[in-house]
């Protein structure tokens, strides 16, 4: 960004009413590798790109199980993300212990947001440099939230954060209206395709991405590599057909959302017929 005299402390306002340190923290999120989340009425899928620093090292863990009904994907300073995950796990355990029931997701994200806000108003602290996609299931249904370093949080049907996330967001914007009634398979497929968008040409392999699911009757778990690779292989075949058909849609159908939705649904239907049955 641009250096100026108001960006040294998080406790210093700029004349335009901005806190630059907080905005710089949000930059850190944009620099991290991509993470995406999308939800249907009954399931939420989280996905992320795992980029190892070198061939010799392992990749960083970006998706964490918080409880049986909540998981989180992070982008940005993974160390901050790890610490916040530990906090979230603790909160879930303590709530379960006291109330013998799972912590509602909405409560957890508010607590997270308040925790982030504290760091924007103390001169001896710095904001957390990590964006969190919190996926959770509670009595009120399936939820996907985005918590940012500023202390704000938003609920989404689908979202992407991190580097090259705009490509994934564009893809999700085209398809999101169908997600509510998507099947498990379609939702995971859409997640993988959104991840593929962020790779911009690089081949999508199960070794460079991680996918996790939580849903009704399905505790949060990370899908194993074989399952992910099978799903990639299954749609790679039809990927080209769908990709070329989707382009004219995106260009032409900016007007009626219903039109787009119908077109995407048609493609979704035809894709289903072509795709081989998969074991989950």
């Amino acid at each position, binding site marked *: 960004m641009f250096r100026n005299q108001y960006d040294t402390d998080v406790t210093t306002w700029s004349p335009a009413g901005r806190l630059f340190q907080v905005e710089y923290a949000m930059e850190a999120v944009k620099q991290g590798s991509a993470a995406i989340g999308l939800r249907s009425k009954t399931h939420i899928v989280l996905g992320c790109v795992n980029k190892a620093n070198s061939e010799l090292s392992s990749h960083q863990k970006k998706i964490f*199980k918080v409880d049986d009904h909540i998981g989180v994907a992070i982008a940005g300073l993974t160390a901050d993300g790890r610490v916040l995950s*530990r906090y979230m*796990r*603790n909160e879930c*355990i*303590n709530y*379960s*212990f006291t109330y013998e029931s799972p912590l509602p997701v909405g409560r957890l994200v508010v607590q997270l947001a308040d925790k982030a806000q504290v760091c924007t108003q103390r001169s001896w602290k710095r904001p957390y440099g990590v964006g969190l996609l919190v996926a959770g299931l509670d009595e009120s249904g399936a939820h996907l939230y985005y918590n940012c370093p500023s202390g704000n949080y938003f609920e989404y049907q689908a979202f992407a954060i991190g580097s090259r996330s705009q490509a994934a967001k564009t893809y999700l914007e085209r398809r999101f209206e169908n997600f509510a009634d998507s099947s498990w398979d379609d939702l995971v497929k859409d997640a993988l395709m959104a991840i593929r968008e962020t790779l911009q040409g690089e081949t999508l392999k199960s070794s460079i991405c991680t996918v996790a699911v939580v849903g009704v009757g399905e505790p949060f778990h990370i899908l194993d590599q074989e399952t992910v690779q099978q799903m990639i292989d299954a749609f790679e075949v039809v990927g080209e057909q769908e990709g070329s058909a989707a382009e004219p849609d995106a260009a032409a159908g900016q007007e009626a959302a219903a039109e787009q939705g119908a077109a995407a649904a048609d493609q979704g239907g035809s894709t289903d017929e072509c795709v081989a049955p998969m074991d989950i």
Partner: protein
Amino acid sequence: MTKQQANWSPYDNNGGSCVAIAGADYCVIAADTRMSTGYNILTREYSKICKLADKCVMASSGFQADVKALQKQLAARHLIYQHQHNKQMSCPAMAQLLSNTLYYKRFFPYYSFNVLGGLDNEGKGCVFTYDAVGSYEKVGYSSQGYGSTLIMPFLDNQLKSPSPLLLPVQDAVTPLVEAEAVDLVKTVFASASERDIYTGDKLEIVVVNAAGIRREYMELRKD
């Protein structure tokens, strides 16, 4: 001037008996399902057995409110362990955790008399027996609760565990087959129910082996 005694106790004893027997590749944990207070029965269908981890089961007699609190504590600590180590706690690890948890309240103890049973890391059966403040020992079999005075001598007679002080160190696990051990447990509880007023109603038997955890029930005397 005589010392003033408390007119209220924070503790109560809800009765019952628990037993655990370790085998070469299995572990049997059993407890009756009667919950009483004084000379009254509170319920005939209360489980004293709790699964703490994949291969680790605990049975506790004593004050069931304390037992419940203890079970919740251990469950929460196990969840933390799983988050940190990405695996389930082994039975010996849980045994140490239980001991530490009990001693933590050395000066206001959990009124809970526990037997912990399960499989160790090699798949062999193991049983740990405790007192209320966490003193524990790995044994081949054990019983706790009101009926233990009747049960333990019988198990000593049948299972004849070698002394842990002998050299060379001898295996404490029983050479009995799983079916024989379950049968023994049923016999032992049937006998205990005859004379112990706090033991009876129904027997809950949990068997831990390589295939997983299995549960079965047997009716006992209702009087």
